[in-house]
């Protein structure tokens, strides 16, 4: 059963401060949904609620439901570890494990989940690296340190690491904000290639990026979702005055 991600009445707090106010939103499967908004609008908090990473921060709490493929991530008895195995995440800054080689970085998720067979690991690593469009660049340096790669390569390494455990959803929290324009373009190409295989949610403060890669876009402001719709429509014909002000550069 594939019906994307359905978020309803999602609220989030940090130490009692209400940072997300009743978000309701449905994201299509095998498509790219972008979340835009100014700094501090709650877009990162929102995406971290989609794989239960929000609660990792001390003092952070959540209420509401998030249905992924019909299953509520916040139902009683759901193990966040299992949730995160199905819902991968890529962060703002490339964060490969510094003590591991390129190969070990990609294999980390599987290895720490108990996969031991060398052949299985090799196959998964190659598949993930190909999927992340990094295989040709690193196939001869799989034994080198993960942090010896360039910033853009490191970010694709992190994408490969997330893909290796075969998630059905990939969350990307401003994946290009630490990268130069060329590396950014490569990641965007990659996103377009990956969307046939995965449901992708990308947080970005770059509106052009949202316009280029996503089918649907949500605009967040001060912890609320102001507007959600088809990307083209939202950018060319916003319904809400605040959305219009933001995308025309009047604030943010």
């Amino acid at each position, binding site marked *: 059963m594939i019906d994307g991600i359905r978020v309803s009445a999602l609220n989030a707090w940090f130490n009692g401060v209400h940072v997300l106010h009743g978000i309701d939103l449905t994201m299509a499967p095998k498509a790219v949904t972008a979340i835009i908004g100014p700094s501090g609008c709650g877009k990162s908090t929102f995406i971290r609620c989609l794989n239960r990473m929000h609660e990792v921060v001390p003092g952070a709490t959540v209420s509401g439901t998030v249905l992924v493929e019909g299953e509520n991530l916040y139902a009683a008895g759901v193990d966040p570890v299992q949730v995160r195995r199905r819902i991968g995440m890529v962060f703002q800054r490339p964060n490969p494990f510094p*003590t591991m080689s390129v190969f070990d970085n990609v294999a980390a998720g599987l290895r720490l989940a108990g996969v031991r067979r060398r052949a299985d690991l090799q196959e998964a690593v190659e598949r993930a690296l190909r999927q992340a469009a990094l295989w040709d660049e690193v196939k001869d340096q799989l034994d080198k340190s993960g942090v010896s790669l360039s910033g853009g390569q490191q970010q694709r390494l992190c994408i490969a690491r997330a893909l290796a455990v075969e998630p059905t959803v990939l969350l990307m929290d401003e994946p290009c904000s630490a990268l130069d324009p060329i590396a950014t373009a490569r990641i965007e190409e990659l996103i377009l290639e990956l969307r046939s295989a995965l449901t992708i949610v990308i947080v970005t403060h770059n509106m052009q990026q949202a316009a280029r890669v996503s089918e649907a876009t949500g605009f967040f402001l001060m912890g609320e979702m102001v507007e959600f719709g088809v990307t083209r429509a939202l950018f060319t014909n916003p319904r809400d005055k605040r959305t219009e002000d933001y995308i025309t550069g009047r604030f943010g």
Partner: protein
Amino acid sequence: MKPAGRRVVNVIMAWLTALAAGAVILPLLMIFGFLLFQGASAVNVDFFTHLPKPVGEDGGGMANAIVGSLVLVGMAAGIGLPIGILGGVYLAESRDRRLPWVVRFLADVLNGVPSIVVGIFAYTLVVLPMRRFSAFAGAVALAVIMLPIVVRTSEEIVRLVPSSLREAALALGIPEWKVVLRVVLPTARAGIITGVMVAVARVAGETAPLLFTAFGNRFWHQRLDQPIAALPLQIFAYAIAPYDDWHRQAWAGALVLIGMVFVVSLAARLATRGRFSGVR
């Protein structure tokens, strides 16, 4: 300030910092040179292979004390390191506020307790109930001295591991305990080893806490519940004795002790060197 003046200040300050850096290693170099000068002549094969000779006879060695020191420090590390490193991980990773604060504070207090007092503690805790001095009692005393050093350095280093790595690992669906064991600790490895070596070097030279725990022994010890020889004890005993030959051997013992700490530190660093570096 004018450019010329700024340049002069720059040169002066650069020299001052270089001088201060030199001053840090100067005492070590002087100690080492002095030990070489005084003790090198007494370091020979006998010193490493023979027991101490009876009073009045020249020659003999400190073989028992060398082995004794290795046994004592090894046992102390066996007790102190697991507790210290795990405790440090707890202090760094715990979400609780109060208990870590208390433990941290008390660890700092423990670090300041004079080592002779730690000796008395081990005496009361181990020697009195067992009714004898023993290697085990000595190791307990040394372990207590190691604990606060290892706990605090491990904590500081584990804290230095960027939270982005923890998040990356958690987001892969790795359980928290495995994240700590397989991602955080390997990243912190080099720094933790530094703390461990500081602690080992510190206790290897401790004399006071061994006086009434390990007690010293002029013969080969047989069992861990018997008194055991240790280099610092032997050095102390020989240094305050009235014989020139013993004085020479005390110098030699000090030289060997420093050499052992040096070799152990180097070996530990090489043996635990990862392929890629983490936090130092």
